[in-house]
Structures are given as structure tokens and as C-alpha cells.
């Protein structure tokens, strides 16, 4: 049986995102980008769950939670 590790990652509420890009500017790993000018998308492979984007987000639509990766 494969071992499934749960890791802490940034999770964006896409529907409420205003696509301002504040999160992109603060991400130390370049793991977040604004997809097609509509919402912020997290690259789960790169995200280390540091929470900088969560702090920066003016709309507070980013959370840090366990994601199976």
C-alpha cells in the first residue's frame, strides 16, 4: 500500500479571489500565479505551506491546510 503523506499547502478560494497578485509577489518559491487573470493558482509541488500568501492576501481568501500530495 502506498504511503499517502499529508502536507500543509496554500489553498485558494478561487471563486472569491480578486486576482490582484499580492500573493505572487510574496511567494518565496514562485509557487503561486494568477491564472488567466481570474484567480490565483497554487503549484502544489512547489508550495511549502509557509503562509506568506495567506498573510498578504487583501481579500483573505487563502488558507493553509493539509493537502494529500
Amino acid at each position, binding site marked *: 500500500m502506498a504511503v499517502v503523506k499529508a502536507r500543509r499547502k496554500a489553498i485558494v478560494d478561487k471563486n*472569491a479571489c480578486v486576482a490582484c497578485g499580492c500573493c505572487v509577489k510574496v511567494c518565496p518559491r514562485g509557487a503561486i500565479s494568477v491564472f488567466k487573470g*481570474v484567480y490565483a493558482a497554487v503549484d502544489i509541488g512547489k508550495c511549502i505551506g509557509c503562509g506568506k500568501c495567506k498573510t498578504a492576501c*487583501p481579500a483573505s481568501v487563502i488558507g493553509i491546510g493539509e493537502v494529500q500530495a
Partner: protein
Amino acid sequence: MKRHWYDYLWIASALYLILGFFNIMFAWLGMLCFMIPLLIAVFGKSKAYCNRYCGRGQLFQLLGGKLKLSRNSEIPRFIKSKTFRYGFLIFFLAMFISMLFNTYLVFAGRELSHKVTLLWTFKLPWHWACHGTVFAPWVVQFAYGFYSIMLTSTLLGVVTMLLFKPRSWCVYCPMGTMTQLICKARNRKELN
């Protein structure tokens, strides 16, 4: 992180507000902040303006972040609701059309009013920023009207910067809401 030339556009935004105190005709430059984001959204299908170039956003980030003037607390839920964001966009556009109508009235012969209207209500004397008669009265009227919009939105942005997070203005910025809607429409195939 590497700094780019566009990370200094906050200087242009600050300069714009200052110049309006000396010569109102500089207000016309604000058209760039209206046209560039729309052009990028329509033809570039992105919000690169908000994401990279918006000097106002950078200015708020500087004041609220670096200078620590922001309380850094969560914005009230209703401000980020779609109803408020779209409602504010409609209100803003209505006020913009009203400003254009005032410009037309001066074009049609009404006397030019040397006032800057703050928060769509308070008329501030601003006659010192108008020099000479090189420009037609309606051109000057538009400058006053446009500067009023820019100063009002900056004021709202400063208040929400202080109360909530530095770039809270971005949450309900009419240009941001409009460009996001354009991007949604222009990229609907990729988004589904």
C-alpha cells in the same frame, strides 16, 4: 527578490497626486491608469496590470507594509462579496458618466467650475491649480472631474489600507473588478 523597473511605479502614482495640486492638467495622465489595464485585459487576456504595474497598489503596499501603517486585519466579508464589488463598479461607472456629462455641459457653454469634488459630495476650492487659457474650458473641466475621481478613490484606498490589509483597495477596485470580468470572458474556454 530581484527588483524590476516596474516595482518603482508607485513613484509615478505619488507624483500624479502631488502634481494635481500644482497644475490640474496633469490629471489627464490618469487616463493611462484607465486605458492600460483595459487594453492588457482585452488584448493580453491577463491582469498583468494589477499583478505587476499598478503603482497605486504598490503605494498602498509601501504605506501599509513597509511603513507599517496598516492594522493588517481581515477585510469585512461584505466588501469582498460579489454584490458589493459589482455594485461599486456600477456606482463608479455611473459617477464617471456623470463626470463626462459635466464636461459636456461646459463644452456646451456652462461656466467652468474650479472645484475638486471629494467623495462625490464635498466641493473643494482648487482654482490655484489652473493657469491661463491655453486649453478649452471643457478640457480643464474634465481634468478637475478626473482628478476628483482619482483623489476620491485614493482616499478610500488609504482608509481601507489603514483599517484592513495594505492592498485592501484591490478587493473592490473598479478597474480590478472590470479587468477580472474581461479576463473571465476572454478566457472562458480555458477556464471551463
